């Protein structure tokens, strides 16, 4: 039996609402670790506010943040699944339905190309008009389809950076550069403590895709030595939650390293996610 479009639509809508209104267990665990090591009064206040807000959002199914973000979809299709264009349409409809239910912030900019850049024709009044960019698609074993919905807020987009690093054939060079970008970003971000998502690839597109996958799949509870190293270097900067000072500017780091080009250059995409991110939820249909 083929995959039901109706099930895909409903599962996607449910995933979007869950992503926008609850913390993942991993994010809660990261906050619990942070509260154990933090001593600064203002820093503790800020992190407790983040957690209390998440409790209320989850209990009442309210948006975690009024910037409900731009929905992104990571689609993993089983190699034995019968999957086609109609299914893509159902997922797109599920995103729109989820935005209506959350509700998403009505922030789609109206008009033609120039008018959209200049924001001269106002905004749509409809939450569901915030359309997702092209889906990321991967093949997985089996006959099921896995949909991960991510909601990407605007603050981290101001600070995110995709750029080249001359690595000098040393991992340490890449780590130092990424940590330096992170230190600069958390000083400016405002909504810290952050989770730093890092993609390392051959092109800007690939690095950004890897970074998105790090947000979707990264494990906030089991950090690799490399991820811990980046977190510690950024935390040594001392910005703290909201920039108010303290030991925890960064809760965790999620690194995703892809194929590399034979070259002295690596392309790194670094996004300092705000203190309610990654907002993600995954559902499987099949």
């Amino acid at each position, binding site marked *: 039996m083929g995959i039901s479009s109706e099930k895909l639509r409903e599962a996607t809508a449910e995933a979007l609402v869950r992503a926008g209104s609850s913390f993942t267990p991993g994010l809660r665990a990261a906050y619990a670790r942070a509260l154990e090591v933090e001593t600064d009064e203002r820093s503790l206040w800020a992190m407790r506010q983040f957690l209390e807000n*998440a409790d209320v959002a989850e209990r009442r199914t309210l948006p975690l*943040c009024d910037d409900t973000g731009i929905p992104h979809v990571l689609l993993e299709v089983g190699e034995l699944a019968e999957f086609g264009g109609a299914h893509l349409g159902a997922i797109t409809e599920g995103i729109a339905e989820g935005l209506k239910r959350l509700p998403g912030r009505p922030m789609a900019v109206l008009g033609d190309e120039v008018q959209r850049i200049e*924001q001269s024709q*106002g*905004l749509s009044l409809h939450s569901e008009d915030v359309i997702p960019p092209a889906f990321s698609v991967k093949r997985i074993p089996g006959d099921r389809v896995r949909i991960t919905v991510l909601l990407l807020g605007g603050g981290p987009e101001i600070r995110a950076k995709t750029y080249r690093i001359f690595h000098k054939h040393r991992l340490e060079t890449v780590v130092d550069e990424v940590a330096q970008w992170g230190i600069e970003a958390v*000083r400016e971000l405002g909504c810290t403590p952050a989770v730093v998502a890092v993609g390392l690839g051959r092109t800007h597109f690939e690095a950004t895709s890897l970074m998105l996958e790090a947000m979707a799949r990264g494990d906030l509870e089991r950090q690799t030595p490399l991820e811990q190293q980046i977190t510690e270097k950024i935390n040594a900067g001392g*910005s703290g939650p909201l*920039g*108010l000072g303290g030991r925890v500017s960064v809760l965790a780091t999620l690194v995703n390293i892809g194929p590399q080009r034979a070259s002295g250059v690596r392309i790194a995409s670094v996004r300092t996610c705000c203190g309610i991110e990654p907002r993600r939820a995954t559902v499987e249909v099949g």
Partner: protein
Amino acid sequence: MRPVCLETPIPPEAMAGLHVGDFLEISGVIYAGRDAVLPKIVAMSDAELAARGIDLEGSVIFHTAVSVAGVGPTTSSKIEIEESIAPLSARGVRIHLGKGRLKADSIRALHAHASLFAVTTPSTALLTDRILATEIAAFPELGMEALYRLRVDRIPAVVAIFHGESIFEQQAQRG
């Protein structure tokens, strides 16, 4: 540390005892606006503001959109928002509420007008019950980016910049 409770319009004497790092709870009528509308408010005359019932003396401007999704601070260092801080302080705005670090020029301008910058967390769900009423005060065509008048009850915040001091610069020097 117990929060200092402030009610709008904020009289000068209520500002005098505040310091960087203080916890605040803000109640009363405040304004909400961000990138699209704040330059328009700066460009309006006192008479134009008064015609819309907007009184900036002793006021609070929360850097946020207002929508069905709720409210929450946006990044205050976005150019159009940060450029509004000096002229609006000169016209009586006492507290600019948002998030993120501000430039040295803004720190000086706040100091010159005895205004402060406070930050709050993006606690949209938590703030839901503390926003008692909302109405559009100006430029309804901007939708969620219009200027809104909000009646609020105990919005929590921390003083980040006041008296020429910035909590962000203090952390940067320590780091």
